[in-house]
């Protein structure tokens, strides 16, 4: 544990709520995706903080070292990072297509266009 107590977890919660707030409050789709990324990264930080053992080194066997950090959560996050990248890629390509089809990526304008479409 760090001297500062639980502060990595405070940072994680702060980032997570920031991400969630951006997803909910922003109308611009790119900003929404950035919020989604912040949200995902916060959980990655949570795993990293969880695997860190105070005073531990990288988990490579060497003479004279007895305390290692837990490598498993760190390895898991490699997969989560890949998932995050893939999600961003799919999301951004959808945004490109939306921009081509509607001429805007502002959600309130998209909603307005769709409402007019429904009214017809």
């Amino acid at each position: 544990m760090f001297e500062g107590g639980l502060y990595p977890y405070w940072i994680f919660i702060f980032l997570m709520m920031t991400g969630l707030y951006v997803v909910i409050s922003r109308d611009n789709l790119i900003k929404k995706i950035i919020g989604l990324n912040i949200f995902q990264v916060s959980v990655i930080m949570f795993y990293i903080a969880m695997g860190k053992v105070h005073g531990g080194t990288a988990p490579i066997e060497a003479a004279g070292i007895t305390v290692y950090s837990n490598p498993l959560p760190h390895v898991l996050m490699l997969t989560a990072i890949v998932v995050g990248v893939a999600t961003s890629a799919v999301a951004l390509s959808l945004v490109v297509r939306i921009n081509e089809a509607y001429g805007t990526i502002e959600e309130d304008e998209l909603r307005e266009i769709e409402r007019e479409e429904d009214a017809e």
Partner: protein
Amino acid sequence: MSGELVERVTTNLPALQIALPLLTAAVCMVIRRARAAWALAMVVAWTSFASAGAILAWVWRHGDISYAEGGWQAPFGIELHIDLLNALVLLVVTGICAIVLTASPKSFDQEIWREHHAKVYALYLLCMTGLAGMTVTGDAFNVFVFLEISSLSSYALISQGTTRRALTSSIQYLVMGTLGGTFILLGIGMIYMVTGTLNMADMAVQLGAVGPNRTVLVALACIGIGIAIKLALFPLHIWLPNAYTYAPAIVTAFLAATSTKVAYYLLVRFIFSIFGAPLAFGALRLDAVLMPLAIAAMFAGSFVAIFQDNLKRMLAYSSVAQIGYMVLGLSLVSVSGLTGGLVHLFNHALMKSGLFLVMAAVLLRTGSVRIEAMAGLGRRMPWTMAAFVVAGLSMIGVPLTVGFVSKWYLVMGAIQAGLWPVAVLILLSSLLALIYIWRVIEVAYFREPPEDAPEVTEAPISLLGPIWVLAGATVFFGIFTSLSVGTASAAARMLLGVGQ
């Protein structure tokens, strides 16, 4: 000697459920030819279905199958673990995948450019990989990985719809789905923090020793919210109607019958196998949250469905209601309640994919999914509309159909729990289903088509065959219930720790 061979083959089948569609998806991307990709996907899907049948038969006779991926033994390695519960879900998922795929070529011809077919089949197989993977795995982190594989491919599949609305629906689902997936990841991390393991069976043992502390309860809440989003449990369902309405018809039939079902399986697995009913319903009172939401879903979904002019959208809202029935069964925390929920998973997959395939056939022949445009179809597409009537009756819960069987167990579960009002509400909400199904039947059978209506012929046999397999199954399993109810009730007993 041959018995030994059968054992060696069968216990290795779970790995094949993941490896086969995953590798074939890559091959589909390479071969590029629409019909060749379809033929290849067909071979894979039907092989998966056959091996899921073999797995279920094996589990019934010999007990659980455990497969250590890469030879690394659990709890350290990744384990694929199959018991009666996921063997049943696997059979449903692969079966629907195979049947819907069989019906796909004509409908895809209409809605998607030929050049893109091979890629769409690759996505379809990837989605199938994710769904089968979530079902067979015994490792919690693996669940997240496969969840994202199936989710990402389904976002791409939904965006293939013909109108530009498919794009906005897809990104709406992507945002919601990613939030859900990340919540599940967070919950799994918290359990790992407490137990130090990712193996589901080992987690359950360790959590039993730890007892209900704050971290465990927050983990359950995070996982519950995450799965509820993927499951489209009211009021977290807002992505579902748009995604189902604007996706290509075949994709809708596929996703409606499989992806929410696997999410329901995950909810059952996490609550009953990992956290345990005492913790989920004693320490956290999850039933007090889930039951009102389930009942609200049953009524809100059916009620909104009544006022839809679009057949696809109507069926999508009906799905929201049917998910309510499944969750209601779970929240009763009794053998008959949970049996009802699991049987409804099986039954709803059959009837909803059947109804959506009927919708695909109507769209193929008339070019519209508006209920108004279906006037007179009862005479012009008699076989297609007859299948709609059969599956629709099942949706209402008429005896001799599967819908009746699942409602019977749900009502029994409610009465056994002493919740008479809930039993009455189940019956009342079925009446709402009667109204929205009747609206379609009335237009199709009792309204004359307008003078200038285009000439409409019966659906092609490639669509009609799968439709009638599903419609026939809703009747068959409504009479011979040993497969669905037998497996579901044995699984429910196992999950609740009650003897035979």
